[in-house]
């Protein structure tokens, strides 16, 4: 079993664009302080930010749990919200239900979930319609995805 070095959790509020990105920013600061490899930080940041923005845009409330061990980084984002009816579709590049308003802000590119998957060494997404969604990622500390 890898040794757990650090764990933190953050609350994300749905539709709160004012505070969107705060959890990811905190995670990045922690990793930077610990002098984690910049490439690993970058991948973690993409995962945390895209998942955080999905909670802000589509869900009611979520929790990001961040765990650092001596081998890897785990990021889990669990939300209470509408859930995703068709996961295969949601994972397709360019597929998005973002509103016009969100698109004007530069969201709704349909690249969030694909980018989370691409930057993870292990990735899973589970969802129940009417209940919520859980996105889990693991990023290994030693090298390529």
């Amino acid at each position, binding site marked *: 079993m890898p040794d757990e070095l650090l764990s933190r959790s953050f609350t994300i509020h749905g539709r709160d664009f004012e505070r969107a990105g705060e959890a990811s*920013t905190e995670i990045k600061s922690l990793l930077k302080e610990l002098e984690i490899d910049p490439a690993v930080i970058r991948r973690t940041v*993409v995962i945390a930010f895209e998942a955080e923005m999905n909670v802000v845009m589509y869900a009611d409330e979520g929790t990001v749990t961040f765990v650092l061990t001596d081998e890897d980084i785990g990021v889990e984002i669990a939300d209470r919200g509408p859930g995703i009816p068709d996961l295969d579709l949601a994972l397709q590049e360019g597929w998005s239900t973002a509103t016009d308003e969100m698109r004007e802000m530069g969201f709704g590119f349909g690249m969030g979930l694909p980018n989370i998957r691409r930057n993870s060494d292990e990735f899973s997404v589970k969802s129940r319609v009417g209940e919520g969604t859980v996105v889990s990622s693991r990023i290994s500390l030693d090298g390529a995805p």
Partner: protein
Amino acid sequence: MKISEVVNKTGLEALTSWDDEELTGVYISDMVSDIITGATGCGLLLTLQTHKSLIAAANLVDVGAVVFARDKRPAADVVELAEKAGIALFSTPVDTWSYAAKLFELGMR
């Protein structure tokens, strides 16, 4: 290229305080998912987006300076957030393409 050289030679208006750091490249995008994966650390980000999540994304990828084209200006609380995060914000009256051309003429690549 130093931020000061870019500011002086392309006529930027500073919206925050800034340190004269070296800019290593340029990224142009208005899509947040594209910025978070594509923008490079220490580079100049040229964009039309002025909201808080844009600043959060720019900060996450360690962008060196953000330039808003077409005289776009973020709200006061967004400027404050950038100031706290240490991200330099600038505004140019010209459109994205015209500003990109200025950077290219200056020798930015």
